[in-house]
């Protein structure tokens, strides 16, 4: 089983979680997800997810000038995004608990 398959289903939640912590620009979000342990996350997947969440009205964005590189477009959660995050987090917690109890024996 490939963890990228699992990641596909929870990437929205992962991105929302990262942005709930603090606002970030595209590549920053990728880097923080990898630092958190999701090393296989694809750059294009994160970028596409950010654009989709933005289009869905869950994120606000603003541009910050940068000295060393291009202007950075930062994304952050708005109220819709925060509600979405809370809802997804609840679903995930329940799902993860179910899966954890289900696979206990296999793990042993």
């Amino acid at each position, binding site marked *: 089983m490939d963890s990228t398959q699992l990641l596909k289903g929870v*990437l929205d939640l992962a991105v929302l979680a990262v942005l709930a912590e603090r606002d970030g*620009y*595209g*590549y920053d979000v990728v880097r923080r997800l990898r630092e958190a342990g999701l090393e296989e996350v*694809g*750059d*294009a*997947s*994160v*970028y*596409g*997810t950010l*654009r*989709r969440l933005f*289009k869905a009205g869950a994120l606000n964005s603003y541009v910050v000038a940068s000295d*060393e*590189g*291009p*202007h*950075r*477009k930062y994304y952050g959660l708005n109220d819709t995004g925060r509600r979405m995050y809370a809802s997804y987090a609840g679903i995930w917690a329940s799902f993860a608990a179910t899966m954890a109890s289900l696979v206990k024996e296999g793990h042993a």
Partner: protein
Amino acid sequence: MTSIAAYAQAVRDALAGHPDREELLEDLDDHLTEIAAESDVPLEERLGPPAAYAEELAAAYGGRPAGRQRRRLDLRRRLGDLHATLLRQAPYRALVGFLPDLRPGWWLLRGYVVALLVLNLAGGGHDHIAPVNPGEWVVVVAIVCASVWFGRRARDRAARLLAVAVNVVAGLGLFGGFVTAGHLAGYQEELQSIRADPRVIMETASGVDGEVYNIKPYAKDGTPLTDVYLYDQDGNPVVTHPENYGYSVDRSCGEVILNRYPLPLVADEGTTGESGVTRAAPCPSVSPASPMPSVPPTRPETTADVTATPTPAEENPADETPTDDPTGKPAATPTPKRSH
């Protein structure tokens, strides 16, 4: 920098058909620049080929394109299933087998319909269902030939789409043609019923405004004539339609013979302009012994003369003057004097 631009362009090209492409790729360049700034390793190596990157991007973005395509495929699959099920039925199989034979006929019909559509549109909204002059025939033949040629040639995707579009237009045109033909048939029927009516209807043939609803005969010396019966060359009474001009026939003195002029007319309410109106005059004293004739009164003295010897037309074919009914009863169809 150029490698970033090239990579971004390649991703854009790969997403050419995506409906939200601009929105999706809005800050792709900045994003790629950020990635490139972090390491000297080329983008292709770090992110994979642009096409794969574009595919992953579209998959993560999701939304309409994939969904719509899936729905369309679903519909196509369902239609395919239905077709397969129906193919097990012999009549449907026979119909499907027979349809290709109809194709050349459809090409001809399609060409004709498209040609007529073109001619009617070019002619400024006529509703011909057949060409009316040699020029139009040339156009029809040319478009029919083009339709057959188009039907026979090998089909690529674009040609198939065009064929579907042309077929739809031709189908609608054919329907429109049927409707027009129906109208024309109705018009013909109306004409037939008008022809079947033996009375002559005064068309707007003369007068200042071309409106004739009453006739005022005068004698050679200028004396106005009354009670003049008018018939056409076939012996049909000549009648006008004053009701179309805001007048009605005054029937206060009893039933009026509609081809006896001038007609006693009264203006309907709201009608202005009284010229040419014969006001309702005192009722003429009619002798009860002489009923009003509706046949040309060539010999009015005989109408009441019951002792006059009738002259049958068969015995004297040279005499074509109307024979009077010796009973004095108005004859429905007088034998007319044919002087064309």
